[in-house]
């Protein structure tokens, strides 16, 4: 059963067409890795899924709800979809714990004690329970990104979107974030990951896609994608980054 359906999604920035009709189905529990050169529309696409960007044509249906301008639908979908950003976007004026408990308390109407208990569990899971009372600015990049993952997980989402989660990190910190993401994938979470980490794609992904100039160029299993790509564009892309 597919949890996200995207049918002929198009998006323009002014005259520039960023998405030229993206059609795909993502099943529950699937881990999808999207790669592609910069400006290929991959980030734009996953940002359309929780409506940080608005698509102008086509349909996106998340968990049975179609994304329209209806505010209620958008809020319903956003609380089902967690998002992790390239630049972490933690709230700098709140402690790590407050960052994680904010949405459960205010959106899910959980009690503070419940939310904090859950938050501590999540911090254990991402491996930094001892940082709970610190402010984001006092943490390293890798730690911040793990907090961001915990923050997204605190809403108990069905889907997690990762928008280049490791691009702003030092090589040593990439591993700690990827480890968390691997663990998450193994737990059965539906994940869409925009990344250049090909190792992660090989190891964890169920499907790998290549975007180029707003189009879905290739869609394949990781094995086929890396060893036996269908399109020439993929071959070129792989030859440049591997």
């Amino acid at each position, binding site marked *: 059963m597919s949890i996200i359906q995207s049918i002929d999604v198009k998006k323009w920035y002014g005259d520039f067409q960023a998405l030229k009709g993206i059609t795909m189905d993502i099943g529950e529990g699937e881990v999808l890795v999207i790669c592609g050169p910069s400006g290929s529309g991959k980030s734009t696409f996953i940002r359309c899924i*929780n*409506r*940080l960007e608005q698509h102008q044509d086509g349909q996106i249906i998340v968990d049975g709800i179609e994304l329209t301008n209806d505010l209620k639908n958008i*809020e319903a979908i*956003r*609380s089902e*979809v*967690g*998002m992790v*950003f390239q*630049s972490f*976007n*933690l*709230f*700098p*004026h*709140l*402690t790590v714990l407050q960052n994680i408990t*904010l*949405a459960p308390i*205010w*959106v899910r*109407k959980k009690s503070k004690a419940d939310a904090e208990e859950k938050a501590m569990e999540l911090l254990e899971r991402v491996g930094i329970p001892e940082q709970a009372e610190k*402010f*984001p*600015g*006092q943490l390293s990049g890798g730690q911040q990104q793990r907090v961001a993952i915990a*923050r*997204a997980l605190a*809403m108990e989402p069905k889907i997690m979107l990762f928008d280049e989660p490791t691009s702003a990190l030092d090589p040593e910190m990439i591993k700690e974030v990827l480890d968390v993401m691997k663990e998450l994938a193994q737990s059965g979470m539906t994940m869409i990951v925009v990344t250049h980490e090909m190792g992660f794609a090989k190891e964890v992904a169920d499907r790998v896609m290549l975007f180029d100039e707003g189009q879905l160029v290739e869609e394949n299993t990781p094995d086929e994608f890396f060893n036996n790509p269908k399109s020439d564009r993929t071959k070129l892309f792989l030859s440049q980054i591997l």
Partner: protein
Amino acid sequence: MSDNINTQESPPEVQFAGVNRWLRENLFSSTGSSILTFLSIGVIIGLFRSIIGFFISPEREWTAITYNLRLYMVQAYPESDFIRVWITIGVVMGLLGLTWGFNSISEKVSLKSTSTSLMKLFSSLFLLVLIAPSSVVVDKVEGTQVEVFQQSLRLYLLGIFGILLLLSYLVRTKLSNQEASKDYLNLFYVGLLVVTLWIIKVPTVTFDSSNVRLDPDPLMPLATSTKTPWTYLYVLLIATFFIGKYLNSKNVSVVKRVLPVSWLLTPLVVVTWIYRKPDFTLTQIATLDLPVILGFSVVGYLVINYLNSEKLMQYQRYFIYGSLLISVIVFTLPVLGQLKLLFFLLWILISVAPTVANSKESARSLFIVWTVAIAILILLMRGGSSESLIVVPGSSIYGGFALTWVLAFFGIAISFPFGVMLALGRTSTFPIIRIICTALIELVRSVPFITWLFFGSVMLTFFLPSGVEFDEVVRAVVVTSIFSAAYLAENVRGGLQSISKGQFEAADAVGLSTLQRISLIVMPQALRAVIPPIVSQVISLFKDTSLVAIVGLFDLLYIGSKVIPNQSQGANFLGTIQENILFCAIFYWLFTYSFARRSMKIEKRLGLGER
């Protein structure tokens, strides 16, 4: 390799290298800097000598201030009603003590830092006494010198400050590791202030039985008639501090909600009830107030519980526009002022109710808030619109520092939320709201404050529906707050622009609503980014209140510059303008400087998360 793990070294200890070296490095590093050092020391000493000489010269008539302190504080407010002022201060003191005690985090300060600042204070006093001139020139033409500072007094003062200096030095060296509770230390400082009211004596003008001024002026305590009330208030402060502390230790969570509400209500209650004698008759309340409260609470109940239902939700925008239209129509109708405000509030309720009251629980609490707010508002307006029975010569019962304080307090309290709303409106995506807010800000900013004051006092009546009239002070408050809101809005907008797009996206991505995003994520960050400009605006608002003199209100500065220097009946203070202006300057400085100090501390505390 266990010894490899702990390779971290502790940083070298920084030691004070000694006075000699400090002097050599900082003041006498080269011939040029030595010359500069000596020159500037000479200039500073000369300057201070002349300033001190000015203050202690026998030509200065400081009794103009000590005699007129009451005039400075409350102007013509009748003595028989002073108890109202004391009750006001008492309420504020009580709340202050409760809040302080309840939120006390039992912070400790090391005696070292306390004694260091005491040493600074005492050594500067010591130096001031040391360089004070012993005689000043009285007559510039003849050059007569008069001794103003006796050598024995100088030695006496030097001795006192020397001993205090020595004591604090001893504390600093011997007890430097000890800690003291910051709360108790602050209570002790306030206590010292109260004690000085009793001890410090100043010359005051007094008259004998046949109304002839006594010569020389006898020395009386600084606050002759107010020292007893201040002492009681100090005791009250201590008592409420410990009550607050006790409540906190018992974890009484209701206090947490009651305290902010009381702080919000106190100024309104004070202005409408304590400074007035409102007319409460049962018939008025029964025939007018109760029905209005009931009616509006029923309407509020309906709005809160049914407007967010599926059927009505789709027509929500029509409800919002419709109720806005109604409130505008009501505003132009000749009805009670209360109704105008209530219909406006109803519009706000209709706009926010469906988003705020999304669960049964929140609907219930919103309904309670709404009803209580309406009831309080009606009672306040009954007090505010009733004829004041306190008889005062002149146009307003507020005058002097009380007026300055009322203007500044309400100016800030009203302009702050208003300014934040204007800033949000100006950055809003709704074109109509954006245009209105931008136009308002630009209009208000581009006309001088004094012009607006005149507008408020002379022309506002033409624009209001007939029958609506405001007190002169209320008009001044309205003008001040709107004027300062426009500037504040621009400051806040600057803060809003400093928030990165990522913060908005992150707030959206975790599912926060627009209101939550603004109040939980955007505003806290935006406001702390603009604390410095906001504080300087608060300071300038406090000082700008002196401009209300232009529309006939007697504020602190007007009393000092015009009223007292023209006093010729009773005590003769004709021409004492220098003393009075100096006093006003020092008075303003005390307040604005403590704002600034306070804000520095807040900035330091809030800066914690932004490293």
